[in-house]
Every structure is written in structure tokens, then in C-alpha cells.
């Protein structure tokens, strides 16, 4: 322990103490000028030169010098350095952060109770000047007790903590800890990480930088052999049978640990009723598949699950899903009166689906109007021009409201006046491809239509030959709103898309029959046509389940529609309230109004959403499963994590880091002692005293001089 200065260089300013001394010595006091009749006789007086360097007011000089010294000392930031003492004693005010893993893997065995005990022990070690925080982390992190020295609050935070349904992610918890430590003014910092240290939650690039000098202690719970069976994946294959949709559930089961094969019972539940069971033998560290008989979907929002016999870690023993009968997309194909055969291949391709995805109507008439058009999801014009005027206006409005229009150019395809508002570019004349014809050379595999053909052996468009095609010119000004999805060998456009309002317009420059091209004869034709129509319709497959921790913005109609929750979005948009019942039985309302309305799916299970007071109605269900990645229980070496954090922390060379840590400790001590305030206060007090004294002295001198005059 000894007196130290945080800014010792400031002491150099102590030479300023010489200022009042020099002033006292050298300042020629501004002597008063007295008129005198004659200085003749004064000059005749023999005198000796009086030294001007005489200090007249020792007390004032002392006060002034003392004030300067105090100010200098204040700026030098003095403090009593107790670092060595604290280090020797191992005590001192410490900010301790207890990071408690509450991912669902912590529910395995006695892990959670062990973790809570370890956390209680960590907070019980607090000294009287220490503070502690309790941070619960899983996919996110939450400081349930922040920088407090009250043991009761800390214990309550630990006692009331529960295992969540979310997977492990160390990043958020460590980042929150970093923030707490950075905000702390205590010189000591310690982090206690209590976890099962699953390798799955550690990426290694969390970028956590703890303040220098932070001690990290790890407490590993649940060490020892692990055995866990998991419903790893569920597939729900739909098939249209006799006009009804049937779903064939199947699942992949995995097993971690174990030494011998184990037979488990797998149950399929529909609307919370077990409808089928299977017995499956799971080898140690192996996987098995199980398939159930098809189930006919009778109603919307059917809740289903595939579950195992619960084991030591029950969270991943069940996979939940919600099924609703799919609605076939209504496709209206318009062909010219004399060319009905031109849509033959197209119609056949659209009819061939397992789940009856498309409901195709072909006609040679005009564009439907009114409700008939509104009922159409995709309108395909095959070699038939779209007239201008009222027909164009009707189609334009329908497209902008979400309709999908596909124009297969052919010989006579095209559009009339006003079509430039929705169609990409302009259709030119027919161009013959000489010899063996053109190929599709450039495809936009990032686009949803071609994305599924991206991988190897996922579809070969190069086999198709194109002998004739219409010229499709895309204006440079349209480039932003128009996407060119496919080009021929010569660079001319084969397929282009333009979004207009909520709808899409696609133009195919050739034909979809066997007249101008042999694409219809290629294997890739059928999936291509399906993707083309699906994309034109703008519809995507509904989400059958979500993962715990995901958040849904119920005000985002498009996202909700994609999630199969369009009804909820419409209700919210119409300012109708909905009550949400969470899997744990808590209910709350989603209120209407401006802005986003988030529904956090924090629990695994079924969320049910219905209008308030209408328990009789079948609710909209959202199935939420735990993150299966958490099932991979392979542990991480805690030392690896600590080393990684320490490396980040001590990013500078060890010596420099130590210096920084030392400087921080010194700064902390100085900040806590804050002597400079008292020194400045003392200096000001002395200056005030000096002012009063000097004024009094000046006044006295002035009075005496006045009396003389």
C-alpha cells in the first residue's frame, strides 16, 4: 500500500508553485504615485537601494503556493494503491457474472439442479463489496439479476430460473456478460460459466472481448455417459386420393450413446389422439426410420406429432406439426380457337402431381371477368394475344392484386395497348434458329423457378433444342423491375419476368409444345412447368412447424400467408383481436394497430390462436419444436472456450495486456477513492481565504494611504 498517482506527469506542473514566489519577489508592486511639491530634497537624501525582492506577505504566499500544489496534486489523481494488498488477500470488490445455461439440453438428468447449485454457490462467495449478475442464456440471453450485491435477489433469480426450449448459443450470453463487465467500475471481474458445454452452441467466432484481468471459471454439469434418442426429422408426404388429401407421415430417429440396441415405441398423434404406434429398434449411436400409414386430412389446422417413449431428455422425443388440406392452384389456360393443341403438353404436365397441386382449366374464349378472374391463381396465354382496352385493363388490375400471368409467345402471342405497363419488354418477330437450333444457355439458378435445378443431376435444360422463338427486347430502363431468367445461346431472352403490384408476369419467348422446341419432350419439362406456375401464383408451401425461439411478425401479411397463418394476419389487419394460448397455458392478446406485432415462439408445443371468447372455434395452431441441433450433445472442452475468450481478451501481447489491466486497476482505485475532489475543494477553500485576506490587506493599505493624503 502506498501513495500513487494516476497521472504522475501532472506533478511536473508543481513547478507552477514558483509562480507566486516569483511574483511575490519580482512583482514591482504598483506603488501609488503621490504628487509632491518637489523631489529635490528627496533626491538629496542619501539612501540605499531597497531590495524589491522582499516577500511582504509570507502567509499569502504560503496560501497561494499551497493552493497551486493542491490543484496540481488533484490533477495528478493521487490514490492509495492497494493492488498488491488486494492481490495478496485475493479479495477486493469484484464484479461477478454467473452465466447459467438454460438450453433444453440442461434438462438431461440432474444437469439443471447441479447447475443451480453451482450458481448458488457462486453467488454465495460474494464479499461485502462484491456485486454479481445472473445471466440465463440459451439461444438468447437475459440478465435476470444485474450487478447487485443483494444475495437474496441473486438466489431468487437462480431459484426461479427454468430450463427453456431453446438451443444453446454461447455468443449472446457472453456478449451480455461483456457489456455488464464493461459497465462495471469494480476493479475485479470474474465470470462463472455454468453449462453442459455443448459444442453445438460454440462457433469460435463469437468475438467476445472481456475487459482485461477478467477471471473466467467454468463449471461443467452432466459429465459422464449420455444416452438420448431423438425424433430427428419428420416428413409429411401428401397425396391426392379420390379427391381427398392423404398425408403419409414418416420420421427419422437417432440415438446418441448406449451400448446395445434399444427398442422404442413411436406414436403418431393427430389432434392429440394417438392414432398409430410403431416399435423401432435403435442401435447405439445409430438411426432408424419409421413410416406411418397415410392419414386423411379432414379439417384445417390439424395438430399432429410423432413421439418416442420419453427418455432422460424428453424435449427432443417429440416432433409436432400442423397440417391443413392443401388448396389446388387454379390455372386458367387460354389458347387460340385454332390452336387448342398448343397447350397439350402444358396441361398434361400440370395434371401430373402427387398432391393435386393444380386445378387446370383450358379454354379458347376471352379472359374471364369479375369473380371468375379473381378465382384464378395463374392465367396462361398460349400463343394468344392479350387484347388492349378493357381486357388489358382487367388483367392489369388483376395482376396488380396478386394474379400470375404467363404468356407463351408462340406465333401469335403478344399484347395490345397498355400492356407495356405489366409486360417485360417488347415482343418482336419470329426468329428461326438454323441447323440444330438453339439451347438454353444461361439460366438464373438463384431464381425460385430454376433453384431446384441448381445441383448436379437436378435437371438438364441443355438437352432441349429451340428452333424458333420470338424476339423479346427488354428495355434498359426496365432492368430494375424486370428479371431475365433464361437466355438462348445467342444471348436473346428466353424467359423474362416482371413484378407488377403483388402479381407477376412471365413471358416465354418460344412455345411449350413440340412445334418450336423439344423442351416438352425433355424430363426437365414437367418440374419446370410446375415451378413456373407455382412461382407465377406467388404461393409457397405452408410452414408445418417452427423452431422454439423464432419470432413471427403477425402484421406481415405475406410472411403469415407463407406460414399458413394468413387468417390471423387478415384478422389483425382488420383490427380484430386474437388471443394466443401458449403451450404452458399462458394466454395473451395480440392487439391491433399500427406497427409490428410480434409473436415470440419461445416454448415448444402448440400455440393456439383464436378470437377472444370463442373457445368453440377450432383455433389456428402453430407447432413449435425444439431446435434439433441441441440433440447433438457432444461436449466442448471448456478450456478451449476460455482460451478463445482469453485470447480475445489478451489480444495484445501479454506484457501490454498486463499493463492495461494494471492501468485499469489503478484507474479503478483512483476513481473509487476520488481524492482529487477533496484536493480541489481544499484548493478552492484556500483560494477563497486568500482572496478575503488579500482584499482585507489591500483595503487596510488603501485606508492608510487615504488617511495620509
Amino acid at each position, binding site marked *: 500500500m502506498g501513495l500513487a498517482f494516476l497521472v504522475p506527469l501532472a506533478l511536473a506542473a508543481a513547478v507552477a508553485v514558483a509562480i507566486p514566489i516569483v511574483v511575490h519577489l519580482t512583482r514591482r*508592486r504598483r*506603488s*501609488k*504615485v*503621490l*504628487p*509632491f*511639491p*518637489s*523631489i*529635490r*530634497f*528627496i*533626491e*538629496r*537624501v*542619501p*539612501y540605499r537601494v*531597497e531590495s524589491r525582492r522582499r516577500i*511582504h506577505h509570507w502567509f499569502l504566499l504560503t496560501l497561494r503556493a499551497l493552493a497551486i500544489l493542491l490543484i496540481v496534486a488533484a490533477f495528478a489523481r493521487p490514490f492509495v494503491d492497494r493492488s498488491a494488498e488486494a492481490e495478496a488477500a485475493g479479495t477486493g470488490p469484484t464484479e461477478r457474472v454467473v452465466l447459467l445455461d438454460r438450453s433444453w439440453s440442461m434438462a438431461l438428468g440432474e444437469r439443471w439442479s447441479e447447475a443451480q447449485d453451482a450458481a448458488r454457490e457462486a453467488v454465495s462467495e460474494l464479499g461485502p463489496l462484491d456485486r454479481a449478475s445472473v445471466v440465463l442464456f440459451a439461444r438468447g440471453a437475459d440478465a435476470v439479476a444485474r450487478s447487485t450485491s443483494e444475495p437474496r435477489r441473486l438466489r431468487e433469480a437462480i431459484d426461479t430460473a427454468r430450463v427453456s426450449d431453446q438451443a444453446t448459443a454461447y455468443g449472446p450470453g457472453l456478449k451480455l456478460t461483456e457489456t455488464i463487465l464493461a459497465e462495471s467500475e469494480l476493479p475485479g471481474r470474474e465470470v462463472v460459466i455454468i453449462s453442459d458445454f455443448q459444442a453445438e452452441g460454440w462457433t469460435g467466432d463469437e468475438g467476445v472481448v472481456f475487459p482485461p484481468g477478467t477471471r473466467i471459471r467454468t463449471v461443467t454439469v452432466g459429465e459422464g455417459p449420455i444416452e438420448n434418442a431423438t425424433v430427428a426429422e419428420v416428413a409429411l408426404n401428401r397425396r391426392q386420393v379420390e379427391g381427398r388429401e392423404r398425408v403419409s407421415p414418416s420420421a427419422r430417429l437417432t440415438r446418441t450413446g448406449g451400448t446395445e440396441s434399444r427398442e422404442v415405441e413411436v406414436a403418431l398423434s393427430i389432434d392429440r389422439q394417438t392414432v398409430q404406434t410403431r416399435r423401432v429398434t435403435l442401435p447405439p449411436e445409430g438411426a432408424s426410420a419409421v413410416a406411418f400409414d397415410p392419414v386423411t386430412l379432414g379439417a384445417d389446422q390439424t395438430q399432429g406429432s410423432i413421439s418416442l417413449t420419453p427418455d432422460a431428455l424428453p424435449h427432443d422425443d417429440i416432433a409436432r406439426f400442423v397440417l391443413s388440406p392443401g388448396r389446388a392452384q387454379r390455372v386458367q389456360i387460354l389458347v387460340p380457337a385454332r390452336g387448342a393443341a398448343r397447350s397439350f403438353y402444358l396441361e398434361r404436365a400440370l395434371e401430373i402431381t402427387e398432391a393435386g397441386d393444380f386445378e387446370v382449366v383450358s379454354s379458347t374464349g376471352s379472359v374471364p371477368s369479375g369473380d371468375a378472374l379473381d378465382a384464378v391463381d395463374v392465367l396462361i396465354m398460349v400463343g394468344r394475344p392479350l387484347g388492349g382496352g378493357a381486357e388489358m385493363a382487367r388483367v392489369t388490375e388483376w395482376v396488380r392484386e396478386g394474379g400470375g400471368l404467363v404468356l407463351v409467345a408462340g406465333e401469335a402471342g403478344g399484347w395490345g395497348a397498355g400492356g407495356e405497363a405489366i409486360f417485360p419488354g417488347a415482343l418482336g418477330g419470329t426468329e428461326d434458329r438454323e441447323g440444330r437450333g438453339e439451347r438454353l444457355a444461361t439460366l438464373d439458378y438463384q431464381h425460385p423457378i430454376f433453384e431446384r435445378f441448381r445441383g448436379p443431376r437436378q435437371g438438364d435444360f441443355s438437352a432441349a433444342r429451340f428452333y424458333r422463338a420470338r424476339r423479346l427486347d427488354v428495355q434498359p430502363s426496365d432492368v430494375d423491375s424486370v428479371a431475365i431468367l433464361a437466355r438462348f445461346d445467342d444471348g436473346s431472352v428466353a424467359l423474362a419476368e416482371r413484378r407488377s403490384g403483388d402479381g407477376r408476369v412471365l413471358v416465354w419467348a418460344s412455345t411449350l409444345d413440340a412445334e418450336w422446341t423439344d423442351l416438352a419432350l425433355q424430363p426437365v419439362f414437367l418440374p419446370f412447368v410446375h415451378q413456373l406456375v407455382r412461382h407465377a401464383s406467388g404461393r409457397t408451401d405452408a410452414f408445418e412447424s417452427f423452431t422454439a425461439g423464432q419470432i413471427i411478425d403477425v402484421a406481415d401479411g405475406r410472411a403469415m400467408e407463407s406460414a399458413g397463418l394468413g387468417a390471423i394476419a387478415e384478422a389483425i389487419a382488420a383490427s380484430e383481436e386474437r388471443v394466443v394460448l401458449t403451450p404452458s397455458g399462458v394466454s395473451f392478446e395480440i392487439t391491433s394497430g399500427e406497427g409490428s406485432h410480434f409473436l415470440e415462439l419461445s416454448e415448444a408445443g402448440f400455440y393456439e390462436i383464436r378470437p377472444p371468447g370463442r373457445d368453440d372455434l377450432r383455433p389456428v395452431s402453430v407447432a413449435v419444436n425444439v431446435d434439433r441441433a441441441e440433440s447433438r450433445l457432444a461436449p466442448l472442452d471448456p478450456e478451449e472456450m476460455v482460451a478463445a475468450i482469453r485470447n480475445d481478451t489478451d489480444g495484445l501481447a501479454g506484457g501490454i495486456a498486463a499493463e492495461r489491466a494494471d492501468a485499469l486497476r489503478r484507474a479503478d482505485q483512483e476513481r473509487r477513492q476520488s481524492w482529487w475532489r477533496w484536493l480541489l475543494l481544499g484548493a478552492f477553500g484556500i483560494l477563497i481565504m486568500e482572496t478575503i485576506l488579500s482584499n482585507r490587506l489591500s483595503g487596510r493599505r488603501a485606508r*492608510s*494611504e487615504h488617511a*495620509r*493624503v
Partner: protein
Amino acid sequence: MDRTATASARFLDPTVLARIGNLDLLARTVVDGFLNGSHKAPYLGQSMDFAQHRPYVPGDDIRRLDWRLYARTDRFYVKQFEAETNTDVVAMVDVSDSMAWTSDAARPTKLDYARFLAASLLHLSRRQRDRVGCVTFDDAPIEHVPATARNLDLSLMALERSRARGPGNLERAVHHTIPTLYKRGIVLVISDFYEDVDDVVRAVRHLTGRRQDVILFHLLDPGERTLPPGDAVSFEDAETGEQVPVIPDRLREGYEAVIDEHVAALRYALVREGVDFVPVDTSTPLDHALFAYLTLRAHTTRRR
């Protein structure tokens, strides 16, 4: 002391006199008060100027009968004469800058005191039928009022108008004044004599060489006899503007010795020249100076 005497003494106090703006009134007040206080006016004038004739009445001094007029008119007339002064009295008042100084704001400056004194002396002289004149000077005569029986008012006006200006030089002033002193008379030099004793003596010799009786009134403010208390003061010469920083506390003794030595040397030199020297403290009432003047005047008359 009766009330009248007390009141008169009070009126002679320079501090009180300083409040009287009119110099004539002031001089009358001083002289009347002085004379009343002394109860005796030593009228010394003997010469008489003719004023008028009046018929003889018994009891008149027959030596004053105008026999020539009796011869022409055959009647007795007595000649009446105005009192005639014996001498010219000229007050030479130093109005150099050093005179405009006082150590106490309530007290008149040396110049004021000099004016009071000169006015009183002239008034007193005039009461004694002297012809009076006045010269104000610094390093040369500034205003010159010749000595006549009627020039008292002009002299007082000249004193009234006088203001301190420039450095003083008595010898030069005397040198320029000498030609105007036609008759034998009395010259009253009122100054602080911040000059070398030799210079003063030379000036006095000029005057005495012209058969002038000289009385020097040496005015000194009490504040000039010593230095004010204090540890650091710059004294500024009233005439030259020169400043000298001194520590009065440490210089006081030496200064007092020097000024005393100067006064003593002045007195000694003037006495040797047969000149009357009257040191006047400006804090003392005027009657001190007036008494000194009258006493010296009596001696002067007897000398003649």
C-alpha cells in the same frame, strides 16, 4: 479670550479662510480681525498728499493754513491732505506648480495660503497708507501690478486670477521685476523656495541692490517637513513631473534632516544678507505671519 477675539482668531484660520471666495473680503476680514484682536493699529505713515481746502476753524493747526490762498482770497483755509504712504509695498507671489500643493485636502494649498497672505499683507499695508503692488511669478513675472495708492484692487484681482503654472525661478523673476521698482520700498517675497540657497541669495541681492527692503515668507506645508508613512510610494515632482520611487518609512529621517538643513541654510544666508526671513507653516493662522510682518516692518522703519 473674549468672544470677539475667538471669532477673529477663527477667521484667521486658513482652513476657514479658504471658504471665502472673494480675496478682498478675505483680506479685510483677516486684517480687521487681526487688528481688532491686537487692539492697536500702529499707523506709521507720515507723508500726506493734498486733498482739499476747508475753512479754518479755531483749534486747527495753524501750520496747515494755506498762506498762498489767504494771500489771494484773504480768507483762512486749511489744507487737508490724504494720508500718504511712506513706501511701496510689492508682494511677489510664487505661483509655480510646487505651490499648488497641500498635504490635507481640507487645508488650502500653499498658493492659496500665499494669496491669502499677500492679500492680507497688501490690505494691511494699504491701511497703513502704503502704496501697494503685486507681482506673480513662476520662472518669470506673470502679472505685474505697479505699486500705487490705488492698485490694491488690481493687486487683489491679480492674486485672484493667479493659477499655478510651470516651474519656478526666483532669480529670473526678480531680474525681470527689478526695472519696475522705481522707488525704494518693501518687497514681500512669498514662496516655498525650492531652489538652491545661493540662487535665492542672488535674487535677494538683486532686490537689496535696488534699495529694496526684502521680507521672505517661506511657506511650507506640514506635509513637506516630513514624508508620509508607507512602504512604497512614487513621489512625482509637481514642477518637472519626474517620479522617484521611494520607501518613505526608510527615507523619512534623512529627508527631514535635509529639509531642516535647507531651511536653516536659507535663514542663515538671508540673515547674513540682512534680509528678513519668515518661515510660515501653512497650517498655522495667518496672524502669525502678519505679526511677523508688522514686527519686521517696525524694525525696517526704525532702520530708516
